[in-house]
Protein backbone atom coordinates (compact mmCIF):
# COMPACT_ATOMS: atom_id res chain seq x y z
CA UNK A 1 0.00 0.00 0.00
CA UNK A 2 2.85 2.41 0.82
CA UNK A 3 4.43 1.94 -2.62
CA UNK A 4 1.09 2.66 -4.24
CA UNK A 5 0.58 5.77 -2.11
CA UNK A 6 4.03 6.96 -3.15
CA UNK A 7 3.09 6.62 -6.85
CA UNK A 8 -0.13 8.57 -6.28
CA UNK A 9 1.48 11.26 -4.13
CA UNK A 10 4.21 11.85 -6.68
CA UNK A 11 1.49 12.59 -9.19
CA UNK A 12 -0.67 14.84 -7.00
CA UNK A 13 1.21 15.90 -3.85
CA UNK A 14 -1.69 18.16 -2.85
CA UNK A 15 -4.17 15.28 -2.43
CA UNK A 16 -4.66 13.21 0.72
CA UNK A 17 -4.86 9.79 -0.90
CA UNK A 18 -5.28 7.99 2.40
CA UNK A 19 -8.71 9.51 2.99
CA UNK A 20 -9.99 10.61 -0.41
CA UNK A 21 -12.65 8.29 -1.88
CA UNK A 22 -13.80 10.43 -4.79
CA UNK A 23 -10.69 10.63 -6.93
CA UNK A 24 -12.65 10.02 -10.15
CA UNK A 25 -16.05 11.40 -9.12
CA UNK A 26 -14.48 14.73 -8.17
CA UNK A 27 -12.23 14.68 -11.26
CA UNK A 28 -9.04 14.75 -9.17
CA UNK A 29 -7.56 12.08 -11.42
CA UNK A 30 -8.03 12.47 -15.16
CA UNK A 31 -7.42 9.97 -17.95
CA UNK A 32 -3.76 11.03 -18.29
CA UNK A 33 -3.20 10.47 -14.55
CA UNK A 34 -4.85 7.05 -14.75
CA UNK A 35 -2.57 5.94 -17.56
CA UNK A 36 0.50 7.20 -15.73
CA UNK A 37 -0.59 5.30 -12.60
CA UNK A 38 -1.23 2.12 -14.59
CA UNK A 39 2.17 2.18 -16.25
CA UNK A 40 3.88 2.86 -12.89
CA UNK A 41 1.96 0.00 -11.28
CA UNK A 42 3.05 -2.22 -14.13
CA UNK A 43 6.64 -1.14 -13.51
CA UNK A 44 6.52 -1.44 -9.73
CA UNK A 45 4.30 -4.50 -9.18
CA UNK A 46 4.49 -6.21 -12.58
CA UNK A 47 0.69 -6.18 -12.72
CA UNK A 48 -1.18 -5.30 -15.91
CA UNK A 49 -4.47 -3.47 -15.33
CA UNK A 50 -6.66 -4.27 -18.35
CA UNK A 51 -8.88 -1.63 -19.94
CA UNK A 52 -12.07 -3.26 -18.63
CA UNK A 53 -10.89 -2.66 -15.05
CA UNK A 54 -10.56 1.08 -15.63
CA UNK A 55 -13.84 2.00 -13.98
CA UNK A 56 -14.50 4.66 -11.31
CA UNK A 57 -15.03 2.05 -8.56
CA UNK A 58 -11.46 0.83 -8.97
CA UNK A 59 -9.84 4.27 -9.07
CA UNK A 60 -11.91 6.36 -6.67
CA UNK A 61 -9.60 5.67 -3.73
CA UNK A 62 -6.11 4.38 -3.05
CA UNK A 63 -7.71 1.53 -1.09
CA UNK A 64 -9.87 0.43 -4.05
CA UNK A 65 -6.88 0.64 -6.35
CA UNK A 66 -4.79 -1.40 -3.92
CA UNK A 67 -7.53 -4.05 -3.80
CA UNK A 68 -7.58 -4.16 -7.59
CA UNK A 69 -3.81 -4.59 -7.81
CA UNK A 70 -3.90 -7.33 -5.17
CA UNK A 71 -6.73 -9.13 -6.95
CA UNK A 72 -5.02 -8.96 -10.34
CA UNK A 73 -1.73 -10.13 -8.84
CA UNK A 74 -3.53 -13.16 -7.36
CA UNK A 75 -5.30 -14.11 -10.59
Amino acid at each position, binding site marked *: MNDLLEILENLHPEVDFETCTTLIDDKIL*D*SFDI*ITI*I*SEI*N*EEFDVVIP*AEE*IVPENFNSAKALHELVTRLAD*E
Partner: protein
Amino acid sequence: MLFTSYEFIAFMAVVFLAYYLVPRKAQWPLLLVASYVFYWCANPMYLLFIGVTTVSTYAVSRLLEKVNAQQKAYLQEHKAELDKEQKKAYKAKMKAKKWHLLLLCLIFNLGILSVTKYSNFVITNINTFLSGSSKLALVDMIVPLGISFYTFQSMGYIIDVYRDKQAAQKNFFKLALFVSFFPQLAQGPISRYGDLSKTLYEPHPFDRKTVSYGVMRILWGYFKKVVIADRLVTGVLTLINGQEMITDLGKVFVDYNGAYVFVAMLFYAFQLYCDFTGGIDITIGIAETMGIRVAENFNLPYFSKNIKEYWNRWHITMGTWFTDYIFYPISVCKPMLKLSKWSREHLGPAVGKRVTVYLSSFAVWLTTGIWHGAAWNFIVWGLANWVVIMVSQELEPLYAKFHARFKVKGKAPYEVFQVVRTILLMSMIRMFDCYRDVPLTFKKVGSMFTSFNWGVLFDGSLLRIGLSSADYLVLAAGLVIVLGVSLFKNKHGSVRDALYAKPSVLFYGLMGLLLVMILIFGAYGIGFDSSQFIYTQF
Protein backbone atom coordinates in the same frame (compact mmCIF):
# COMPACT_ATOMS: atom_id res chain seq x y z
CA MET B 1 -36.92 14.66 -42.45
CA LEU B 2 -35.03 17.50 -40.74
CA PHE B 3 -35.69 18.16 -37.05
CA THR B 4 -36.70 21.65 -38.16
CA SER B 5 -39.14 20.51 -40.85
CA TYR B 6 -42.92 20.59 -40.49
CA GLU B 7 -42.95 16.90 -41.43
CA PHE B 8 -40.78 16.05 -38.45
CA ILE B 9 -42.86 18.12 -36.05
CA ALA B 10 -46.01 16.35 -37.32
CA PHE B 11 -44.23 12.98 -37.08
CA MET B 12 -43.13 13.74 -33.53
CA ALA B 13 -46.68 14.76 -32.53
CA VAL B 14 -48.15 11.55 -33.96
CA VAL B 15 -45.53 9.38 -32.22
CA PHE B 16 -46.09 11.22 -28.94
CA LEU B 17 -49.86 10.77 -29.04
CA ALA B 18 -49.62 7.13 -30.10
CA TYR B 19 -47.02 6.48 -27.39
CA TYR B 20 -49.46 7.38 -24.63
CA LEU B 21 -52.51 5.85 -26.33
CA VAL B 22 -51.17 2.37 -27.01
CA PRO B 23 -50.98 -0.20 -24.17
CA ARG B 24 -47.82 0.45 -22.16
CA LYS B 25 -46.14 -2.78 -23.14
CA ALA B 26 -46.49 -1.68 -26.76
CA GLN B 27 -44.66 1.61 -26.15
CA TRP B 28 -41.16 0.44 -26.98
CA PRO B 29 -42.26 -1.58 -30.05
CA LEU B 30 -44.03 1.57 -31.23
CA LEU B 31 -40.75 3.49 -30.89
CA LEU B 32 -38.98 0.83 -32.94
CA VAL B 33 -41.56 1.16 -35.72
CA ALA B 34 -41.34 4.98 -35.51
CA SER B 35 -37.53 4.84 -35.69
CA TYR B 36 -37.59 2.66 -38.78
CA VAL B 37 -40.25 4.89 -40.40
CA PHE B 38 -38.07 7.93 -39.64
CA TYR B 39 -35.07 6.23 -41.21
CA TRP B 40 -37.10 4.97 -44.16
CA CYS B 41 -38.28 8.55 -44.83
CA ALA B 42 -34.64 9.67 -45.03
CA ASN B 43 -33.87 6.96 -47.60
CA PRO B 44 -35.27 3.41 -47.77
CA MET B 45 -31.79 2.12 -48.65
CA TYR B 46 -30.50 3.24 -45.24
CA LEU B 47 -32.59 0.51 -43.62
CA LEU B 48 -30.35 -2.10 -45.19
CA PHE B 49 -27.24 -0.63 -43.56
CA ILE B 50 -28.69 -0.18 -40.09
CA GLY B 51 -30.33 -3.60 -40.35
CA VAL B 52 -27.02 -5.30 -41.15
CA THR B 53 -25.29 -3.56 -38.23
CA THR B 54 -28.12 -4.55 -35.90
CA VAL B 55 -28.14 -8.20 -36.98
CA SER B 56 -24.34 -8.57 -36.74
CA THR B 57 -24.22 -6.80 -33.36
CA TYR B 58 -27.04 -8.97 -32.01
CA ALA B 59 -25.55 -12.24 -33.28
CA VAL B 60 -22.03 -11.55 -31.98
CA SER B 61 -23.26 -10.21 -28.63
CA ARG B 62 -25.22 -13.42 -28.06
CA LEU B 63 -22.20 -15.53 -28.96
CA LEU B 64 -19.99 -13.48 -26.65
CA GLU B 65 -22.43 -13.92 -23.82
CA LYS B 66 -22.49 -17.63 -24.45
CA VAL B 67 -18.70 -17.74 -24.06
CA ASN B 68 -18.91 -15.59 -20.91
CA ALA B 69 -21.50 -17.96 -19.41
CA GLN B 70 -19.51 -21.04 -20.46
CA GLN B 71 -16.39 -19.63 -18.77
CA LYS B 72 -18.20 -18.84 -15.52
CA ALA B 73 -19.85 -22.26 -15.41
CA TYR B 74 -16.60 -24.10 -16.12
CA LEU B 75 -14.61 -22.19 -13.50
CA GLN B 76 -17.35 -22.69 -10.94
CA GLU B 77 -17.62 -26.41 -11.70
CA HIS B 78 -13.87 -27.01 -11.57
CA LYS B 79 -13.11 -24.52 -8.80
CA ALA B 80 -11.52 -27.09 -6.53
CA GLU B 81 -9.45 -29.02 -9.04
CA LEU B 82 -7.88 -26.14 -11.05
CA ASP B 83 -4.77 -24.42 -9.79
CA LYS B 84 -3.94 -20.76 -10.44
CA GLU B 85 -1.97 -21.41 -13.63
CA GLN B 86 -4.65 -23.69 -15.09
CA LYS B 87 -7.33 -21.10 -14.40
CA LYS B 88 -5.18 -18.45 -16.02
CA ALA B 89 -4.60 -20.62 -19.10
CA TYR B 90 -8.31 -21.40 -19.41
CA LYS B 91 -9.24 -17.71 -19.10
CA ALA B 92 -6.66 -16.82 -21.74
CA LYS B 93 -8.11 -19.44 -24.11
CA MET B 94 -11.64 -18.12 -23.64
CA LYS B 95 -10.48 -14.54 -23.98
CA ALA B 96 -8.86 -15.38 -27.33
CA LYS B 97 -12.13 -16.95 -28.49
CA LYS B 98 -14.06 -13.84 -27.49
CA TRP B 99 -11.43 -11.58 -29.05
CA HIS B 100 -11.87 -13.27 -32.44
CA LEU B 101 -15.62 -12.79 -32.28
CA LEU B 102 -15.24 -9.17 -31.26
CA LEU B 103 -12.69 -8.50 -33.97
CA LEU B 104 -14.97 -10.01 -36.59
CA CYS B 105 -17.83 -7.75 -35.54
CA LEU B 106 -15.64 -4.64 -35.33
CA ILE B 107 -14.02 -5.21 -38.71
CA PHE B 108 -17.38 -5.90 -40.33
CA ASN B 109 -19.15 -2.83 -38.95
CA LEU B 110 -16.26 -0.41 -39.03
CA GLY B 111 -15.64 -1.77 -42.54
CA ILE B 112 -19.14 -0.68 -43.60
CA LEU B 113 -18.54 2.72 -42.03
CA SER B 114 -15.14 3.07 -43.70
CA VAL B 115 -16.28 1.97 -47.16
CA THR B 116 -19.37 4.19 -47.21
CA LYS B 117 -17.76 7.23 -45.67
CA TYR B 118 -14.11 7.15 -46.66
CA SER B 119 -13.84 5.39 -50.07
CA ASN B 120 -13.77 8.61 -52.08
CA PHE B 121 -11.34 10.24 -49.67
CA VAL B 122 -8.93 7.33 -50.12
CA ILE B 123 -9.40 7.31 -53.91
CA THR B 124 -8.82 11.07 -54.13
CA ASN B 125 -5.58 10.73 -52.15
CA ILE B 126 -4.38 7.78 -54.27
CA ASN B 127 -5.16 9.80 -57.39
CA THR B 128 -2.70 12.50 -56.34
CA PHE B 129 0.04 9.95 -57.04
CA LEU B 130 -1.46 8.81 -60.35
CA SER B 131 -1.67 10.64 -63.62
CA GLY B 132 -3.99 10.83 -66.63
CA SER B 133 -5.97 7.73 -67.48
CA SER B 134 -4.54 5.72 -64.58
CA LYS B 135 -6.52 7.82 -62.11
CA LEU B 136 -9.21 5.88 -60.27
CA ALA B 137 -12.85 6.84 -60.70
CA LEU B 138 -14.74 8.08 -57.65
CA VAL B 139 -17.55 5.84 -56.45
CA ASP B 140 -21.15 6.86 -56.05
CA MET B 141 -21.60 5.77 -52.46
CA ILE B 142 -24.59 6.14 -50.15
CA VAL B 143 -23.59 7.48 -46.74
CA PRO B 144 -26.41 6.45 -44.40
CA LEU B 145 -27.71 9.12 -42.05
CA GLY B 146 -26.02 8.98 -38.65
CA ILE B 147 -23.86 5.95 -39.56
CA SER B 148 -20.95 7.19 -37.42
CA PHE B 149 -23.25 7.57 -34.43
CA TYR B 150 -25.11 4.28 -34.60
CA THR B 151 -21.98 2.31 -35.51
CA PHE B 152 -20.05 3.69 -32.54
CA GLN B 153 -23.04 3.15 -30.26
CA SER B 154 -23.34 -0.49 -31.38
CA MET B 155 -19.60 -1.09 -31.11
CA GLY B 156 -19.55 0.36 -27.60
CA TYR B 157 -22.28 -2.13 -26.68
CA ILE B 158 -20.46 -5.09 -28.21
CA ILE B 159 -17.21 -4.17 -26.42
CA ASP B 160 -19.09 -3.95 -23.11
CA VAL B 161 -20.52 -7.44 -23.68
CA TYR B 162 -17.03 -8.67 -24.60
CA ARG B 163 -15.70 -7.21 -21.35
CA ASP B 164 -18.59 -8.88 -19.51
CA LYS B 165 -19.62 -5.49 -18.19
CA GLN B 166 -22.94 -5.71 -19.96
CA ALA B 167 -25.36 -8.62 -20.38
CA ALA B 168 -26.34 -9.14 -24.01
CA GLN B 169 -29.89 -8.14 -24.91
CA LYS B 170 -31.78 -11.34 -25.72
CA ASN B 171 -34.65 -9.64 -27.51
CA PHE B 172 -33.51 -8.78 -31.05
CA PHE B 173 -36.13 -6.05 -31.45
CA LYS B 174 -35.10 -4.34 -28.23
CA LEU B 175 -31.52 -4.21 -29.46
CA ALA B 176 -32.77 -2.90 -32.82
CA LEU B 177 -34.46 -0.04 -30.95
CA PHE B 178 -31.26 0.74 -29.04
CA VAL B 179 -29.35 1.01 -32.34
CA SER B 180 -32.02 3.02 -34.17
CA PHE B 181 -33.80 5.15 -31.53
CA PHE B 182 -34.92 7.97 -33.82
CA PRO B 183 -34.36 11.15 -31.76
CA GLN B 184 -30.63 10.43 -31.48
CA LEU B 185 -30.11 8.76 -34.84
CA ALA B 186 -29.01 11.81 -36.79
CA GLN B 187 -26.54 13.51 -34.47
CA GLY B 188 -26.19 11.51 -31.28
CA PRO B 189 -25.51 11.54 -28.40
CA ILE B 190 -23.61 8.25 -28.54
CA SER B 191 -25.52 6.45 -25.80
CA ARG B 192 -24.26 3.55 -23.72
CA TYR B 193 -26.56 0.56 -23.62
CA GLY B 194 -26.31 0.40 -19.82
CA ASP B 195 -27.62 3.97 -19.52
CA LEU B 196 -30.24 4.15 -22.24
CA SER B 197 -31.75 0.71 -21.63
CA LYS B 198 -32.70 1.72 -18.07
CA THR B 199 -35.63 3.77 -19.41
CA LEU B 200 -35.94 2.84 -23.09
CA TYR B 201 -38.00 -0.33 -22.64
CA GLU B 202 -39.85 0.61 -19.45
CA PRO B 203 -43.55 1.36 -19.65
CA HIS B 204 -44.12 5.07 -19.10
CA PRO B 205 -47.46 6.44 -17.90
CA PHE B 206 -48.21 10.03 -18.89
CA ASP B 207 -46.58 12.34 -16.36
CA ARG B 208 -47.30 16.04 -16.69
CA LYS B 209 -44.01 17.17 -15.15
CA THR B 210 -41.84 14.91 -17.32
CA VAL B 211 -43.70 15.90 -20.48
CA SER B 212 -43.55 19.60 -19.56
CA TYR B 213 -39.81 19.35 -18.92
CA GLY B 214 -39.36 17.60 -22.26
CA VAL B 215 -41.39 20.17 -24.20
CA MET B 216 -39.49 23.02 -22.52
CA ARG B 217 -36.19 21.39 -23.51
CA ILE B 218 -37.38 20.89 -27.11
CA LEU B 219 -38.43 24.54 -27.37
CA TRP B 220 -35.12 25.69 -25.92
CA GLY B 221 -33.33 23.60 -28.55
CA TYR B 222 -35.42 25.07 -31.37
CA PHE B 223 -34.81 28.57 -30.02
CA LYS B 224 -31.03 28.08 -30.21
CA LYS B 225 -31.25 26.40 -33.60
CA VAL B 226 -33.66 28.58 -35.55
CA VAL B 227 -33.32 31.95 -33.82
CA ILE B 228 -29.52 32.00 -33.46
CA ALA B 229 -27.73 29.25 -35.42
CA ASP B 230 -29.79 29.47 -38.61
CA ARG B 231 -29.67 33.28 -38.57
CA LEU B 232 -25.87 33.18 -38.33
CA VAL B 233 -25.54 30.76 -41.27
CA THR B 234 -25.81 33.46 -43.95
CA GLY B 235 -23.12 35.62 -42.37
CA VAL B 236 -20.77 32.71 -41.77
CA LEU B 237 -21.13 31.35 -45.33
CA THR B 238 -20.60 34.79 -46.86
CA LEU B 239 -17.48 35.47 -44.81
CA ILE B 240 -16.05 32.02 -45.50
CA ASN B 241 -16.87 31.67 -49.20
CA GLY B 242 -16.76 35.34 -50.23
CA GLN B 243 -19.45 36.89 -52.42
CA GLU B 244 -20.03 38.75 -55.65
CA MET B 245 -20.94 42.40 -55.13
CA ILE B 246 -21.95 45.22 -57.44
CA THR B 247 -19.60 48.17 -57.01
CA ASP B 248 -18.72 51.32 -58.98
CA LEU B 249 -16.23 49.14 -60.86
CA GLY B 250 -18.92 46.62 -61.80
CA LYS B 251 -19.40 43.11 -60.49
CA VAL B 252 -16.49 42.07 -58.26
CA PHE B 253 -15.82 39.04 -56.14
CA VAL B 254 -15.14 39.96 -52.53
CA ASP B 255 -12.87 37.66 -50.56
CA TYR B 256 -12.81 38.20 -46.81
CA ASN B 257 -9.59 38.36 -44.79
CA GLY B 258 -8.18 39.72 -41.55
CA ALA B 259 -10.81 41.07 -39.19
CA TYR B 260 -13.54 39.43 -41.27
CA VAL B 261 -11.97 36.03 -40.54
CA PHE B 262 -12.01 36.89 -36.84
CA VAL B 263 -15.73 37.72 -37.11
CA ALA B 264 -16.36 34.50 -39.08
CA MET B 265 -14.50 32.59 -36.37
CA LEU B 266 -16.71 34.00 -33.60
CA PHE B 267 -19.91 33.67 -35.63
CA TYR B 268 -19.11 30.05 -36.43
CA ALA B 269 -18.31 29.37 -32.76
CA PHE B 270 -21.77 30.63 -31.75
CA GLN B 271 -23.48 28.98 -34.73
CA LEU B 272 -21.96 25.58 -34.02
CA TYR B 273 -22.69 25.85 -30.29
CA CYS B 274 -26.33 26.77 -30.83
CA ASP B 275 -26.75 24.29 -33.67
CA PHE B 276 -25.25 21.28 -31.93
CA THR B 277 -26.43 21.95 -28.38
CA GLY B 278 -29.84 22.96 -29.79
CA GLY B 279 -30.08 19.70 -31.71
CA ILE B 280 -29.12 17.70 -28.64
CA ASP B 281 -31.67 19.63 -26.54
CA ILE B 282 -34.35 18.62 -29.06
CA THR B 283 -33.16 14.99 -28.95
CA ILE B 284 -33.09 14.84 -25.16
CA GLY B 285 -36.37 16.73 -24.94
CA ILE B 286 -38.20 14.37 -27.33
CA ALA B 287 -36.98 11.36 -25.36
CA GLU B 288 -37.91 13.06 -22.10
CA THR B 289 -41.51 13.65 -23.21
CA MET B 290 -41.73 9.86 -23.43
CA GLY B 291 -40.04 9.31 -20.07
CA ILE B 292 -36.75 8.19 -21.63
CA ARG B 293 -33.45 9.54 -20.34
CA VAL B 294 -30.77 10.19 -22.95
CA ALA B 295 -27.24 11.02 -21.78
CA GLU B 296 -26.28 14.69 -21.58
CA ASN B 297 -23.77 15.69 -24.24
CA PHE B 298 -22.76 19.16 -23.03
CA ASN B 299 -21.96 20.82 -19.76
CA LEU B 300 -21.55 24.52 -20.51
CA PRO B 301 -18.43 24.00 -22.66
CA TYR B 302 -17.87 27.73 -23.23
CA PHE B 303 -17.28 28.16 -19.50
CA SER B 304 -14.17 25.95 -19.66
CA LYS B 305 -10.92 27.44 -18.41
CA ASN B 306 -8.66 25.24 -20.52
CA ILE B 307 -8.88 22.99 -23.55
CA LYS B 308 -8.77 19.78 -21.52
CA GLU B 309 -11.75 20.95 -19.48
CA TYR B 310 -13.46 22.03 -22.70
CA TRP B 311 -13.24 18.51 -24.10
CA ASN B 312 -14.71 17.15 -20.87
CA ARG B 313 -17.72 19.43 -21.39
CA TRP B 314 -18.22 19.38 -25.19
CA HIS B 315 -19.66 16.35 -27.02
CA ILE B 316 -19.20 14.40 -23.78
CA THR B 317 -20.53 11.08 -25.07
CA MET B 318 -18.05 11.08 -27.95
CA GLY B 319 -15.16 12.02 -25.65
CA THR B 320 -15.93 9.29 -23.12
CA TRP B 321 -16.44 6.79 -25.95
CA PHE B 322 -12.98 7.51 -27.33
CA THR B 323 -11.47 7.43 -23.82
CA ASP B 324 -13.03 4.10 -22.84
CA TYR B 325 -12.76 2.23 -26.13
CA ILE B 326 -9.62 3.67 -27.73
CA PHE B 327 -7.47 5.65 -25.29
CA TYR B 328 -7.45 3.14 -22.42
CA PRO B 329 -7.11 -0.05 -24.50
CA ILE B 330 -4.19 1.43 -26.46
CA SER B 331 -2.57 2.81 -23.31
CA VAL B 332 -2.64 -0.48 -21.41
CA CYS B 333 -1.92 -2.90 -24.24
CA LYS B 334 1.23 -4.96 -23.76
CA PRO B 335 3.32 -3.35 -26.53
CA MET B 336 2.58 0.09 -25.11
CA LEU B 337 3.53 -0.96 -21.57
CA LYS B 338 6.73 -2.48 -22.95
CA LEU B 339 7.48 0.72 -24.83
CA SER B 340 6.87 2.74 -21.69
CA LYS B 341 9.24 0.48 -19.75
CA TRP B 342 11.87 0.69 -22.47
CA SER B 343 11.57 4.48 -22.60
CA ARG B 344 11.99 4.76 -18.83
CA GLU B 345 15.12 2.66 -18.94
CA HIS B 346 16.73 4.26 -21.98
CA LEU B 347 15.35 7.78 -22.13
CA GLY B 348 14.70 8.48 -18.46
CA PRO B 349 11.57 8.50 -16.25
CA ALA B 350 10.36 11.85 -17.54
CA VAL B 351 10.09 10.59 -21.14
CA GLY B 352 8.92 7.11 -20.10
CA LYS B 353 6.05 8.63 -18.16
CA ARG B 354 4.90 10.67 -21.13
CA VAL B 355 5.30 8.24 -24.01
CA THR B 356 2.07 6.28 -23.33
CA VAL B 357 -0.05 9.36 -22.84
CA TYR B 358 1.37 11.08 -25.93
CA LEU B 359 0.99 8.12 -28.29
CA SER B 360 -2.45 7.05 -27.06
CA SER B 361 -3.74 10.63 -27.23
CA PHE B 362 -2.32 10.94 -30.72
CA ALA B 363 -4.29 7.85 -31.78
CA VAL B 364 -7.45 9.22 -30.16
CA TRP B 365 -7.23 12.63 -31.81
CA LEU B 366 -6.35 11.17 -35.18
CA THR B 367 -9.41 8.91 -34.93
CA THR B 368 -11.55 11.80 -33.69
CA GLY B 369 -10.52 13.83 -36.73
CA ILE B 370 -11.25 10.96 -39.12
CA TRP B 371 -14.57 10.28 -37.39
CA HIS B 372 -15.66 13.86 -38.03
CA GLY B 373 -15.21 13.63 -41.77
CA ALA B 374 -13.43 12.28 -44.79
CA ALA B 375 -11.11 15.24 -45.38
CA TRP B 376 -7.63 16.36 -44.39
CA ASN B 377 -9.21 19.41 -42.74
CA PHE B 378 -10.72 17.20 -40.06
CA ILE B 379 -7.56 15.17 -39.58
CA VAL B 380 -5.51 18.35 -39.13
CA TRP B 381 -8.22 19.69 -36.82
CA GLY B 382 -7.94 16.56 -34.66
CA LEU B 383 -4.16 16.73 -34.55
CA ALA B 384 -4.23 20.47 -33.78
CA ASN B 385 -6.33 19.63 -30.71
CA TRP B 386 -3.78 16.99 -29.75
CA VAL B 387 -0.89 19.45 -30.06
CA VAL B 388 -2.65 22.09 -27.98
CA ILE B 389 -3.60 19.59 -25.26
CA MET B 390 -0.07 18.20 -25.08
CA VAL B 391 1.50 21.66 -25.01
CA SER B 392 -0.84 22.79 -22.25
CA GLN B 393 -0.05 19.57 -20.37
CA GLU B 394 3.66 20.43 -20.58
CA LEU B 395 3.02 24.00 -19.53
CA GLU B 396 1.10 22.96 -16.41
CA PRO B 397 4.11 23.31 -14.05
CA LEU B 398 4.73 26.76 -15.48
CA TYR B 399 1.09 27.73 -14.94
CA ALA B 400 1.33 26.42 -11.36
CA LYS B 401 4.35 28.66 -10.73
CA PHE B 402 2.57 31.61 -12.32
CA HIS B 403 -0.55 31.04 -10.21
CA ALA B 404 1.55 30.71 -7.04
CA ARG B 405 3.58 33.84 -7.84
CA PHE B 406 0.71 36.14 -8.82
CA LYS B 407 -2.12 34.64 -6.74
CA VAL B 408 -4.60 35.00 -9.61
CA LYS B 409 -6.12 31.52 -9.53
CA GLY B 410 -9.80 31.64 -8.62
CA LYS B 411 -10.02 35.41 -9.09
CA ALA B 412 -12.95 36.42 -11.31
CA PRO B 413 -11.04 38.58 -13.86
CA TYR B 414 -8.43 35.86 -14.36
CA GLU B 415 -11.14 33.20 -14.76
CA VAL B 416 -12.85 35.35 -17.38
CA PHE B 417 -9.49 35.66 -19.15
CA GLN B 418 -9.07 31.86 -19.06
CA VAL B 419 -12.57 31.29 -20.43
CA VAL B 420 -12.13 33.82 -23.26
CA ARG B 421 -8.70 32.39 -24.10
CA THR B 422 -10.16 28.86 -24.33
CA ILE B 423 -13.07 29.99 -26.51
CA LEU B 424 -10.71 31.85 -28.88
CA LEU B 425 -8.27 28.96 -29.07
CA MET B 426 -10.98 26.38 -29.74
CA SER B 427 -12.69 28.64 -32.25
CA MET B 428 -9.43 29.17 -34.12
CA ILE B 429 -8.74 25.43 -34.35
CA ARG B 430 -12.30 24.92 -35.52
CA MET B 431 -11.69 27.08 -38.58
CA PHE B 432 -10.43 23.87 -40.22
CA ASP B 433 -14.15 22.92 -40.43
CA CYS B 434 -14.89 25.99 -42.46
CA TYR B 435 -12.48 26.46 -45.33
CA ARG B 436 -12.20 24.09 -48.28
CA ASP B 437 -8.66 22.88 -47.55
CA VAL B 438 -5.83 23.04 -45.02
CA PRO B 439 -3.53 25.56 -46.80
CA LEU B 440 -6.45 27.99 -47.26
CA THR B 441 -7.32 27.66 -43.57
CA PHE B 442 -3.75 28.54 -42.57
CA LYS B 443 -3.77 31.46 -45.01
CA LYS B 444 -7.07 32.81 -43.73
CA VAL B 445 -6.28 32.35 -40.04
CA GLY B 446 -2.84 33.88 -40.67
CA SER B 447 -4.51 36.92 -42.26
CA MET B 448 -6.03 37.77 -38.87
CA PHE B 449 -2.51 38.65 -37.74
CA THR B 450 -1.31 40.27 -40.95
CA SER B 451 -4.27 42.19 -42.44
CA PHE B 452 -4.94 45.14 -40.20
CA ASN B 453 -8.44 45.99 -41.37
CA TRP B 454 -10.10 46.11 -37.97
CA GLY B 455 -11.92 49.27 -39.00
CA VAL B 456 -14.44 47.10 -40.88
CA LEU B 457 -15.91 46.15 -37.53
CA PHE B 458 -17.23 49.69 -37.11
CA ASP B 459 -17.78 51.14 -40.61
CA GLY B 460 -20.92 49.22 -41.57
CA SER B 461 -19.13 46.58 -43.65
CA LEU B 462 -20.67 43.84 -41.52
CA LEU B 463 -24.11 44.95 -42.72
CA ARG B 464 -23.15 43.80 -46.21
CA ILE B 465 -22.61 40.13 -45.43
CA GLY B 466 -26.24 39.09 -45.58
CA LEU B 467 -27.16 40.22 -42.07
CA SER B 468 -29.21 43.35 -41.40
CA SER B 469 -29.31 45.53 -38.28
CA ALA B 470 -32.47 43.68 -37.25
CA ASP B 471 -30.61 40.35 -37.58
CA TYR B 472 -27.80 41.63 -35.35
CA LEU B 473 -30.34 42.83 -32.82
CA VAL B 474 -32.08 39.44 -32.72
CA LEU B 475 -28.73 37.66 -32.52
CA ALA B 476 -27.50 39.87 -29.69
CA ALA B 477 -30.74 39.41 -27.73
CA GLY B 478 -30.71 35.65 -28.39
CA LEU B 479 -27.12 35.26 -27.25
CA VAL B 480 -27.77 37.36 -24.12
CA ILE B 481 -30.66 35.00 -23.27
CA VAL B 482 -28.44 31.93 -23.85
CA LEU B 483 -25.68 33.48 -21.72
CA GLY B 484 -28.15 34.37 -18.95
CA VAL B 485 -29.58 30.84 -18.87
CA SER B 486 -26.04 29.38 -18.88
CA LEU B 487 -24.91 31.63 -16.02
CA PHE B 488 -27.98 30.67 -14.00
CA LYS B 489 -27.36 26.97 -14.66
CA ASN B 490 -23.71 27.33 -13.74
CA LYS B 491 -24.56 28.91 -10.42
CA HIS B 492 -27.85 27.32 -9.39
CA GLY B 493 -28.24 24.11 -11.44
CA SER B 494 -31.33 23.14 -13.43
CA VAL B 495 -33.25 26.12 -14.79
CA ARG B 496 -36.35 23.98 -15.31
CA ASP B 497 -36.32 22.84 -11.66
CA ALA B 498 -36.15 26.45 -10.53
CA LEU B 499 -39.00 27.46 -12.84
CA TYR B 500 -41.17 24.47 -12.00
CA ALA B 501 -40.92 25.31 -8.31
CA LYS B 502 -42.61 28.67 -9.03
CA PRO B 503 -46.34 29.04 -9.75
CA SER B 504 -47.12 26.99 -12.86
CA VAL B 505 -48.27 30.07 -14.77
CA LEU B 506 -44.64 31.20 -14.89
CA PHE B 507 -43.35 27.85 -16.23
CA TYR B 508 -46.06 27.51 -18.88
CA GLY B 509 -46.02 31.24 -19.60
CA LEU B 510 -42.30 31.07 -20.37
CA MET B 511 -42.90 27.98 -22.48
CA GLY B 512 -45.45 29.94 -24.51
CA LEU B 513 -43.10 32.92 -24.76
CA LEU B 514 -40.33 30.66 -26.05
CA LEU B 515 -42.69 29.30 -28.70
CA VAL B 516 -43.72 32.81 -29.73
CA MET B 517 -40.07 33.90 -29.96
CA ILE B 518 -39.28 30.88 -32.15
CA LEU B 519 -42.21 31.66 -34.45
CA ILE B 520 -41.48 35.39 -34.67
CA PHE B 521 -37.69 35.49 -34.57
CA GLY B 522 -36.82 32.15 -36.14
CA ALA B 523 -34.77 32.47 -39.32
CA TYR B 524 -37.29 31.47 -41.99
CA GLY B 525 -38.22 32.75 -45.39
CA ILE B 526 -36.18 34.38 -48.16
CA GLY B 527 -32.47 34.01 -47.54
CA PHE B 528 -33.02 31.77 -44.54
CA ASP B 529 -33.74 28.17 -45.34
CA SER B 530 -33.72 26.20 -42.15
CA SER B 531 -30.55 24.27 -42.55
CA GLN B 532 -29.45 20.76 -41.73
CA PHE B 533 -27.81 20.32 -38.33
CA ILE B 534 -24.05 20.58 -38.72
CA TYR B 535 -23.33 17.36 -36.81
CA THR B 536 -25.68 15.34 -39.00
CA GLN B 537 -22.96 15.26 -41.66
CA PHE B 538 -20.59 13.51 -39.23
